[in-house]
């Protein structure tokens, strides 16, 4: 096993997720690190936001993370060999008003990482754009669409459910363009 200081952020996320799961705490990665993973490092996050599937006592989380060298700083956790912060959030795992239904798994040498899907990741970023007018998150949503398979029809349906149909319409063309870039790159790779 790699040393923590040599791990990528995704490998560290897999280590944390796998270890917590082995201690009976089932968590799903959400937030900015999913953007890093799905946008192929075009965006760099500095923290790991995990959401437990059910409510879990923070003392249990703290005890489990201390077994792999993490120390708690207030409500966050940090390994002395890594600059990455770990946040164990309060359930439920949701994007806007809807529960997250699809959980993806990625296998790393450090463990199996359970995380939200590329589509939910893009929706999660769009939620921050809709509700907090955060244009950085709109750009992150676009990056996810440009590098991963996002179901834009589902994003449009969800946006309407959130009462954000008009805001989605404003950004739809930009997202479709990102999708075209991804498909074009994919086609070029296949012909090479």
């Amino acid at each position, binding site marked *: 096993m790699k040393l923590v200081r040599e791990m990528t952020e995704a490998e560290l996320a897999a280590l944390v997720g796998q270890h917590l799961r082995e201690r009976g705490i089932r968590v799903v990665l959400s937030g900015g690190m999913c953007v890093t993973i799905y946008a192929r490092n075009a965006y760099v996050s500095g923290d790991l936001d995990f959401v437990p599937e059910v409510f879990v006592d923070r003392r249990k989380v703290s005890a489990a993370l201390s077994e792999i060298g993490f120390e708690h700083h207030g*409500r966050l956790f940090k390994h002395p060999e890594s600059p990455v912060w770990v946040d164990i*959030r*309060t359930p*439920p795992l*949701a994007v*806007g*008003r*809807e*529960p997250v239904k699809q959980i993806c798994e990625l296998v790393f040498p450090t463990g199996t990482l359970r995380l939200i899907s590329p589509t939910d990741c893009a929706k999660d970023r769009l*939620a*921050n754009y809709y*509700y*907090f007018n955060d244009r950085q998150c709109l750009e992150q949503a676009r990056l996810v669409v440009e590098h991963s398979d996002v179901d834009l029809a589902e994003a449009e349906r969800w946006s309407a459910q959130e009462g954000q149909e008009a805001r989605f319409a404003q950004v739809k063309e930009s997202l479709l363009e990102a999708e075209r870039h991804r498909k074009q790159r994919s086609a070029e790779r296949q012909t090479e």
Partner: protein
Amino acid sequence: MLEPLLGSQDAERALLYLYCLGEGYPRQMARTWGSTFSAMQKQLARLEAAGVVYSRRLGRTRLYRFNPRYPFLAELQALLARALTFYPEAERQALLMQRQRPRMAGKPL
């Protein structure tokens, strides 16, 4: 009214304040309810960690609002609206009838 559910009277008061007035800071809420700043701040921090509210710094003040991303927000607000109808008229008026319109800087009260 909702203390048995929320586990704290100050949590209920903070949420009712936000429901009625849209935003607020701990000292203002504590003054309205005759509570203490530290008790209100503690409950708001707990609600923020749970994703129910969010905060922004405005100068030296931390201003709280409902988190529009909280998945049970509509249901919570419906519950708060119902709870508010059970409050004594005087308390309800004290909460609702606070000055919200702007006051120009330098204008005497």
